[in-house]
């Protein structure tokens, strides 16, 4: 009987103490969430997918450890080319550690690159199936990164991963989409300063691949040229040369060739490389002609 009365006293004291600490704990919890020190609750169903042992460890406050273990497991699925299990693993991992960029980035990379290439090169699949599977996994990779961005809106690394994915000429480039993601990256407060001019250059390259936005590209390219000598890179200079030709920029406002290129030899080699590596929608106005002129010029 005595033990029951003691337990009742204990419960009453704990309730009174609990009421006293409730607001303090609530405020501390809010401050921690605001400072991103504690993880948001796990998504519904994650515990079930984790299995009993991992779920217990994760619920016991060791989510980073469980995520690291599942990351190794995901690598084994990659090794076995089991893309379905790999995708499931990264969903679990990112649910456990939604603020870790690396997991979003690597999970997406496995999907949009490794899985997509695997299906594209699969010998037993008919061509239409190869194409559809490649597109499917490319889309899955992109969606995975977009989910990462939704959960970490100011994470510039995830925005840039999306931008790189949609501007990759070896995948399925969508330049307007890539430009949008580059602009989102530039809007991130967390973006380090040194990355800014490089990202603006990438934005320029991608805009120049969109025929209806080439005027905008010319303006951006010109601004970048005058901004810093660090921007005077062969690709930017050649694009600017072609864009000026495309819009017949008047001599007064045009950047002359002798300012654009350091000398005739480099002008020739840079333009030649640019011409050889061109894509369907690369601005090329006057490039071929200029290469020929340079080749036939006596001073060359």
């Amino acid at each position, binding site marked *: 009987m005595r033990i029951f009365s003691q337990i009742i*006293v204990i419960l009453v004291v*704990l309730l009174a103490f609990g009421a006293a600490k*409730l607001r303090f704990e609530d405020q501390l*919890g809010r401050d921690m969430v605001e400072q991103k020190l504690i*993880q948001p609750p796990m998504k519904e169903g994650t515990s079930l997918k984790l299995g009993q042992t991992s779920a217990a460890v994760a619920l*016991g406050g*060791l989510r*980073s450890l469980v995520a690291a273990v599942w990351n190794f497991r995901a690598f084994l699925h990659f090794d076995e080319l089991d893309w379905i299990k790999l995708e499931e693993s990264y969903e679990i991992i990112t649910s456990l550690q939604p603020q870790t960029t*690396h997991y979003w980035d*690597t999970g997406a990379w496995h999907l949009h690159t490794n899985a997509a290439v695997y299906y594209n090169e699969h010998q037993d699949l008919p061509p239409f199936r190869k194409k559809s599977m490649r597109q499917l996994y490319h889309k899955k990779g992109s969606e995975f990164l977009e989910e990462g961005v939704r959960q970490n809106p100011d994470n510039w690394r995830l925005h840039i991963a999306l931008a790189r994915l949609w501007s990759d000429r070896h995948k399925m480039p969508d330049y307007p989409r890539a430009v949008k993601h580059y602009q989102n990256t530039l809007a991130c407060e967390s973006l380090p300063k040194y990355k800014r001019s490089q990202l603006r250059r990438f934005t320029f390259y991608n805009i120049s691949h969109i025929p209806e936005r080439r005027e905008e590209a010319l303006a951006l390219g010109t601004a970048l040229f005058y901004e810093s000598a660090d921007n005077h890179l062969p690709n930017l200079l050649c694009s600017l040369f072609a864009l000026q030709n495309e819009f017949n920029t008047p001599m007064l406002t045009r950047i002359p060739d002798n300012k654009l290129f350091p000398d005739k030899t480099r002008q020739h080699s840079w333009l030649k490389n640019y011409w050889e590596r061109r894509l369907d929608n690369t601005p090329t106005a006057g490039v071929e002609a200029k290469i020929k002129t340079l080749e036939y010029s006596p001073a060359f």
Partner: protein
Amino acid sequence: MQQEIRKETKMRKNGIFSPSRILVIASHTFTQLVRMKVFYFLAVFAMLMLVASYFEMPWSRTTEDSAEQELIILKSTAMGAMAMFSVLFAIAATALLIPKDLEDRTLYTILSKPVPRFDYLLGKLIGVLLLVGSSLLLMDILLSFILHSRTDALITAEMERGAARGWQQEYLDLRKEEISQQGLTWDLQAGIGAIFFKAMIMASIALLISTFSSSTLFTIVIAVVIYFIGHFTADARNYWLQNQGAGVSTQVKLLSQGASLIFPDFQLYNIIDAAIEGKKIAANIFQRLALLTFFYTGIYSVLAWFTFRKKEF
């Protein structure tokens, strides 16, 4: 004669709280636990650290932050082991203490002397915490040493890579800063502090349970259950505070209220994850967490004394 009377009066006036007496009991408990060969765990931990420190990312992809990820994996392995050891040890050791003293008859010897029961309990608790603390300290030293050397090696490799690629000095400095933030920092020490705080609360809970439980196993099981419930307390509190009256049944409401009031909120101690990820932990947050821990430990210790004070053996 007068001197003898004074001596007797002094003994009778034995206060409830004597630091020196508590320290004697604590050091005895510490020795008692050391003799149980718990430090062998450190050898396992050292092995784990060595393996983790030689680990390289298994994928061939070279991302910008792969150096940081290697350090994160090293930290998460080490701190996961530290957290698991400290909580399990705090529960098991505390649950064992009173039954072991009873079995060895040490308890009768101590309590037949003018030793207040509160001092006995506090001494036992401090003894366990001393052991958990010193084990964590040793593991921390080992982790710090390995982490420091690994961070240095990764920074050197990254700087060499950067120099070969002609990176700007500004970028090199930033990469150095980014990798260093995943190395040995005060934020990491704050995370280890949170591990100790968690163990402190669990030890005091186990102490409270062991004062009225008749079996060690019961104490351990109940303490482990409370540990897991503690990770849902935040959800229960949010459910109560944020969803008041929003179609919630009275039973569910009472249950969530009870859980959030009675059990400690262990989610708050998950700044361990933030420390692993190299995030900055504000001093103010750590201080508030420490205050909450002492508050919890204090209240559970007082309640343990309440049930233990008139217990007959």
